[in-house]
């Protein structure tokens, strides 16, 4: 059976009970909605041998493949309905014979179609969409009598493999390999960033050991030694000089401790800034590597957050978290031992509140984490809103919606305030209670210890030391509780960071991808189907061939799929079905860099980067000479306006600098594309924003440049396409006409109509109507 879906044991049983030879089923498809359109299980299976399609729901039904034809999908919002045309049993589709005229055949076909009725085959949610499309394809091919093998390219999409370990992804769309991600725990992976800093790590560890030792010794000297041996009336060192010596030691220890902490902080600062830099670089690189579809699905504010805050959070964890965790852990264990030796009963009394505190943390802290998480989200949304309304400030002002925007912002900032307030309130209900408990037990130690001192069971020095140590026992508890919090936060941030890094782009070079250094410019689309979201097909079975040197004009109204064709040629997205080849090579087999260096695209969306105009023109070819830059600018008719700028080609443009007008930006972007001197040039409404005269000048310049090269111009205005030697007309995702202008005009079809329309309009304008 073909590797699409497997039949459940139950379905297999039902089929063989119905007398079906289950060994010879070709393909099975699982639909996750029942025939009543609720969740359920329905299986479709095709057997070429029997010439049947079986539907296994409650019962097994069978349809003859000859009678059930034209399967099609109703793209509903969240579900898909598979329908087909059912003909009476024995009604065979007419075949065209030689003596039949087209009209006669048409009549027969019409009559045949009329005898069929549309029936519902089944329902499934969008989760089954990809397989549904594949199943339909296989169904039609099997019904035609074609062979479909297990190696058929249609199955590739379901078997996306992790390039690292070669295992199948759990979800082909998610492209995160659980195998590769889990092997190295997030924390260990974070530590990996610190591996180049071994010397610093050793130094930091020594510092931590040193400061722990000092903090353990200090109370002994300032407590036990000073009180019991020097100050106490029966001390064995009751001499003035020992006072100086001990105070000197105490001060020296404090200084040493300060020195150690400076060394440690400096090491940390050095490491952490380097590590943060590397993390940010890694995220940025990982993001850039991802395909366009990722950016379409993520708000920009969120991406910025990822690059900035997440790395900072991780840095903070390693500076203010990990070192103190180690110090506090060593202190806590060391102290418990020392205290037990000193005075077991008093120690137990100190440790008495620990379980209470731990319980409070355990049950109250999750609330706090959740509220922190909510605050993080609120802050992220606020950034998003800020980003949106500031980017769209022109529209906001044009519609005088400043107040509405402000109100909306107030709404989001109120939400953030509430989230933060809530976090604070929860925090306030936890920590003061704990302080109170610690305070009560601390005072009890003074009381009980005081009684013991009076009863001569312990010395005053011991008690004083004990009280100092006691403070040191509780301090880490507070820290530990916050540490778990910090750890969760950091792990969240780290996971988000690594998620981006682990995500395997939808579009990757095939392992055996070839360099195509000298792209000639032959483009072929074979049965290309494409959609951005499963329920809105953009291209349906588009096939055409463009030869080297062709100048193609692509027409069709908005949303007909013109720009999508440009996106597919440059492999911004991969086709859903069919293939795109350049010079006979499937573009999936061409290295991305060599593909893009052979194709330049000037699109509707123009982006000018921060930098000089010359840099912007040179963007695609940084090593271009000044002569080349100027030549490209001249060709794009940009030279004149550039020379009128104060610093010529060195004028700074982009965000925060001089802003160029729409037409100027467009000309810069055309120059950018021309400089690449590509084999294939795609102009996606490139001259739409220019006046007719400029457009004319540019198109003549472009015409000279693209001689012998393949060009595809997408335009609404047919005048733009006057130099094209072929016209393709798209409608509703289908290629409806292709030919020379003369042919299409003679055909009196779509192109002719468009032309007449624009002509009529022009005449009306001329006549002043």
């Amino acid at each position, binding site marked *: 059976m073909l590797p699409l879906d497997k039949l459940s044991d139950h379905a297999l049983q039902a089929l063989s009970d119905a007398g079906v030879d289950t060994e010879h089923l070709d393909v099975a498809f699982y639909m996750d*909605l029942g025939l009543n*359109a*609720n*969740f*359920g299980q329905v299986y479709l299976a095709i057997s070429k041998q029997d010439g049947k399609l079986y539907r296994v729901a409650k019962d097994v039904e069978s349809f003859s493949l000859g009678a059930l034809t*034209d399967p*099609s999908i*109703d*793209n*509903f*919002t*969240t*579900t898909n309905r598979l*329908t087909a045309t*059912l003909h009476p049993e024995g009604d065979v589709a007419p075949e065209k014979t030689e003596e039949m005229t087209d009209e006669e055949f048409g009549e027969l076909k019409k009559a045949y179609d009329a005898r069929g*009725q*549309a*029936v*519902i085959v089944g*329902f499934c*949610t*969008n*989760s089954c*969409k990809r397989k549904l499309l594949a199943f339909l394809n296989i169904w039609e091919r099997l019904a035609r009598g074609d062979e479909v093998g297990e190696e058929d390219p249609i199955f590739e999409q379901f078997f996306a493999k992790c390039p690292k370990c070669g295992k199948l992804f759990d*979800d082909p*769309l*998610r492209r995160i390999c659980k195998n590769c*991600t889990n092997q190295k725990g997030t924390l260990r992976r974070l530590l990996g960033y610190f591996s180049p800093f071994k010397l610093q790590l050793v130094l930091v560890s020594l510092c931590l050991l040193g400061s722990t030792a000092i903090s353990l010794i200090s109370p002994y000297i300032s407590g036990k030694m000073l009180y019991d041996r020097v100050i106490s009336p029966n001390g064995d060192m009751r001499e003035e000089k020992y006072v100086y010596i001990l105070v000197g030691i105490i001060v020296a220890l404090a200084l040493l401790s300060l020195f150690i902490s400076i060394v440690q902080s400096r090491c940390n600062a050095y490491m952490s800034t380097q590590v943060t830099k590397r993390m940010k670089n890694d995220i940025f690189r990982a993001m850039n590597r991802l395909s366009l579809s990722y950016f379409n*699905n*993520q*708000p920009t504010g*969120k991406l910025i957050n990822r690059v900035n805050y997440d790395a900072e959070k991780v840095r903070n964890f390693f500076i203010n978290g990990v070192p103190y965790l180690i110090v506090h852990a060593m202190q806590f264990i060391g102290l418990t031992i020392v205290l037990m030796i000193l005075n077991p009963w008093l120690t137990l009394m100190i440790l008495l509140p620990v379980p209470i505190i731990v319980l409070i943390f355990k049950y109250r802290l999750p609330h706090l984490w*959740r509220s922190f998480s*909510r605050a993080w*989200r609120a802050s992220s*949304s606020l950034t998003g809103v800020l980003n949106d309304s500031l980017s769209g400030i022109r529209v906001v002002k044009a519609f005088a919606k400043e107040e509405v925007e402000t109100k909306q912002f107030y709404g989001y900032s109120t939400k953030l305030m509430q989230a933060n307030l809530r976090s604070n309130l929860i925090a306030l209900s936890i920590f003061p209670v704990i302080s109170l408990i610690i305070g009560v037990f601390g005072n009890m130690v003074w009381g009980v210890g005081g009684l013991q001192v009076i009863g001569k069971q312990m010395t005053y020095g011991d008690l004083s030391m004990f009280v100092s140590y006691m403070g040191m026992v509780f301090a880490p508890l507070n820290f530990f509780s916050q540490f778990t919090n910090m750890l969760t936060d950091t792990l969240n941030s780290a*996971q*988000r960071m690594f*998620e981006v890094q682990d995500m395997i782009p939808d579009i990757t070079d095939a392992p055996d991808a070839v360099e195509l250094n000298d792209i000639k410019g032959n483009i072929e689309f074979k049965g290309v189907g494409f959609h951005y979201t499963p*329920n809105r097909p953009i291209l*349906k079975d588009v096939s055409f061939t463009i030869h080297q040197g062709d100048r193609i004009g692509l027409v069709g*109204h*908005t949303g007909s799929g013109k720009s999508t064709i440009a996106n597919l040629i440059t492999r911004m997205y991969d086709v859903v079905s069919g293939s795109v080849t350049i010079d006979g090579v499937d573009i999936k087999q061409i290295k991305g860099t060599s593909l893009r260096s052979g194709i330049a695209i000037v699109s509707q969306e123009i982006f000018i980067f921060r930098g000089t105009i010359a840099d912007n023109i040179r963007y695609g070819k940084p090593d271009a000479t000044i002569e080349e830059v100027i030549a490209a600018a001249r060709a794009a008719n940009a030279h004149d306006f550039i020379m009128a700028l104060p610093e010529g080609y060195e004028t700074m443009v982009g965000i925060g600098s001089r802003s160029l007008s729409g037409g100027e930006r467009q000309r810069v972007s055309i120059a950018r594309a021309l400089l690449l001197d590509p084999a294939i040039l795609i102009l996606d409404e490139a001259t*739409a*924003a220019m006046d*007719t005269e400029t457009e004319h000048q540019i198109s003549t310049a472009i015409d000279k440049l693209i001689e012998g090269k393949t060009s595809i111009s997408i335009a*609404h*205005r047919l005048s733009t396409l006057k130099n094209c030697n072929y016209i393709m*007309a798209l*409608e*509703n995702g289908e290629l*409806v006409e292709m030919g020379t202008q003369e042919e299409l005009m003679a055909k009196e*079809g*779509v192109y002719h*109509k*468009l032309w007449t*329309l*624009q002509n009529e*309009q022009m005449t009306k*304008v001329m006549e002043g109507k």
Partner: protein
Amino acid sequence: MQNKYRYMHHDGRHGGRFGFGGAGGDRSLFEKRVSIALHPQNAVFLRSPGGLLSMTLTKEDGSTEQFERVIPVRAFPITDPDSFICIREPDTKKKGKGEEIGMIERLADFDEQAQALILEELSRRYFTPAIKKIHSLHEKFGYLYFDVTTTAGRSEFVMSNPSGSFRTLEDGRIFMYDIDGNCYCVQNPEALDKASLKKIEIYL
């Protein structure tokens, strides 16, 4: 003119909208059917033998047009599901281009049988199971994994980008979109059991 079609054309500079007379019987690229108001007097809905929604349209001139299958689409599926329902041709290669035939302003104007037929079709189009209980929800690498019982049965789904995949309406309803583009909803968060609500609370 018998066939009144209107073509809307937008030109880069001039911009404009004007009528365009259909040249022949066949409609093609730029000719569009003019959507008309549908009411019980001019539109009769029936279930086709194959179980699909079919419609007979009586035009102004008294002639009728038969549609073996039509697709109802809501203009305001969330806030006003029973008004402004467009009736469209299916968008398939052989039968129609998904053009709008007409619009039903108020579904309530139609008799119960027609209403039931249209609503059944709509309920499939906007299949949005209401969550009754959330059995488990865990987050991993920014993805949420749900296991829920809904009005349409038990289901598991995965959600990416939690902050963008929850949509809370003013009336309190919550819509949740999964990674495949399926939609689940919570009709009334207050009626949901506490443990379930707690699981999704932080994402709202």
